[in-house]
């Protein structure tokens, strides 16, 4: 197994991260029902292995662009849970000063570029950022997460073509959770083996079980290595599943309860935990301690958000234009 090459500390850190996403989002759902959080709240629960596995393969200077289902990505990238929660509360202590909310988490200092909520529209931007890196002779790659729904957008195809044509270092990560909102893959794609869309743009691609953290880690490390050596883009398809509704207000008429239960058996968190236990990379006692630490950190995040403040209305029109017009 891959993890055997890793030390115990690394295993514990990953377990902490994937657990943090789960508990953080469960708490967010609760706060949503209490109306502390409003707007859309798209939960990542069930899909956590993808963000955790891919982002751990990146370097801090690499760019990340994600979708509106991005709490997990932001957490793994190292953004503070309190600052993220405050953003969802709309407080000015939030990572985007409360201006963005759940769908628009940004942290330039951590090269985290959203939080993009027009499906497919951030793919061309990712290509542009990679183009800039290439022109500026920087060694960074740009990692762009999107769902299989976005792969039906024209911009997906334009971006794939441009990235491959210009040979720029983009890691396209398709988080295939089988539903574009409420419409299943079979109703949205003629070619459902999504990785095959890569070669048609002369782009390397592969598919991985997105419910298996260790598998995702291995696949993304391979992909990243390839990008760094060739400077060319790569399409990684992670098959995964979202356990909860698309957003909070969703009756889930489009899928069978049994199907959800079936997928829950593949829950990436117990799977990874058990693997660590089995490899003796962690003890049950340590697992319990980690659970407690996560619980504590989520509590702190809520406290931070609760004590945050709202921006005064007089500031309404800030950040429309830069204050310093000429640079």
């Amino acid at each position, binding site marked *: 197994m891959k993890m055997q090459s890793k030390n115990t500390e690394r295993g514990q850190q990953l377990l902490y991260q994937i657990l943090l996403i789960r508990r953080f989002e469960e708490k967010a759902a609760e706060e949503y029902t209490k109306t502390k959080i409003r707007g859309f709240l798209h939960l990542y629960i069930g899909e956590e292995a993808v963000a955790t596995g891919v982002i751990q393969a990146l370097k801090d200077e690499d*760019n990340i662009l994600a979708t509106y289902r991005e709490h997990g990505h932001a957490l793994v990238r190292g953004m503070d849970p309190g600052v993220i929660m405050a953003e969802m509360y709309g407080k000015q202590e*939030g*990572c*985007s*000063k*409360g*201006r*963005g909310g759940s769908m*628009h988490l*940004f*942290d*330039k200092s951590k090269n985290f*570029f*959203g*939080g*993009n909520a*027009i499906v497919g*529209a*951030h*793919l*061309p*931007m*990712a*290509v*542009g*950022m*990679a*183009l*800039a*890196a290439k*022109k*500026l002779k920087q060694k960074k790659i740009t990692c762009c997460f999107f769902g299989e729904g976005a792969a039906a957008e*024209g*911009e997906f195809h*334009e*971006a794939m*073509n*441009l990235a491959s*044509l210009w040979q720029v270092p983009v890691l396209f990560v398709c988080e295939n959770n089988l539903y574009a909102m409420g419409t299943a893959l079979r109703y949205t794609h003629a070619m459902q083996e999504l990785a095959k869309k890569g070669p048609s743009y002369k782009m390397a691609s592969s598919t991985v079980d997105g419910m298996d953290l260790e598998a995702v880690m291995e696949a993304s490390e391979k992909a990243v290595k390839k990008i760094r050596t060739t400077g060319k883009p790569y399409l990684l398809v992670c098959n995964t599943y979202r356990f909860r509704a698309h957003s909070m207000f969703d009756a889930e008429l489009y899928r069978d309860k049994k199907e959800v239960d079936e997928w829950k058996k593949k829950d990436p968190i117990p799977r990874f935990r058990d693997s660590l236990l089995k490899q003796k990379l962690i003890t049950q006692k340590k697992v319990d301690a980690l659970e407690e630490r996560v619980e504590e950190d989520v509590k702190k995040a809520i406290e931070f958000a609760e004590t945050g403040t709202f921006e005064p209305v007089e500031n309404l029109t*800030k*950040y*429309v*234009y*830069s204050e*310093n*017009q*000429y*640079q």
Partner: protein
Amino acid sequence: MSQTRKITYREALKEAIREALTENDKVFLMGEDVGRYGGAFAVSKGLLEEFSEERIMDVPLSESGFVGAGIGAAMAGLKPIVEVMTVNFGLLAMDQVVNNAATMLHMSGGQINVPVVIRMSCGIGKQLAAQHSHSWEPYYAHVPGLRVISIGTHEDARGVLQAALQSPDPVVIFEYTSMLNMEGELPEETIKVDIESAKIRREGTDISIITYGAAVNKCMEAAEELKVEGIEAEVLDLRVLRPLDEAAFLASVSRTHRALIVEDAWRSVSVSSEVSARITEKAFYELDVPVKRVCGAEVPIPYPLHLEDASVPQKKDIVEVVKKMIRP
């Protein structure tokens, strides 16, 4: 008087691009047919040879893709000049402009700037029919977060790009194909223009003709004709369609007490409707006659020349309306 030289609008645009490429190696031009073809309207002709493929990038026909890439490149530290061949294809990339370029700074709480410059040629006058004769400046002028500039003079053709590249925010520039071959006078020395203020192109006391883009020239000609009849018209080139330089036109109207707004774009929900509304809101008691507009007819632009001419303001329309406003 300083020395002047004759130059076409096209050549002025090209000089500006050349200057930008020379002065700042983070600047590059990307767009459909800007390189090997020499630019759809020959604006960038010769630049590929002068610079390199890296700096003059031909792109595939994927407006959303390359405009989005331009935005991404700007976010990541470059100064891209993205050319959308014509405004007519601009809507294919409208989402990128409105949802990404215009929102990023705000959505990120002031963290992320998008210093991209997007150039589009636009306008009417070549019998190109309904899908290739658009005046869509008002669409872009509607969007907070963008700076929207309309180049109605040779001076601006030469000077606007430099100012736009210095802006940390996205700038959309409209150029007019009908003016490309037009010759104008420019001073020998470097031109400095700003992209924040409107400019009075001709001073006058009897009426303020407020306009932008290709209509500036028509208004200047109309003003000359009116002078013969003893009417002194002031021509104010809005130049910046967003954020509007409101102070400039309110001041002009407060001097002349009459306002005519001339615009090639369709009349309804246009730049002229906005300017008119603001005059009424903020300079009502300065008005001695109702605000009038001469705008594009509300019709998809027809192919035949006589119908095409009839669908946008012409010099004689402007002259006629001004005369009626001053001597009813």
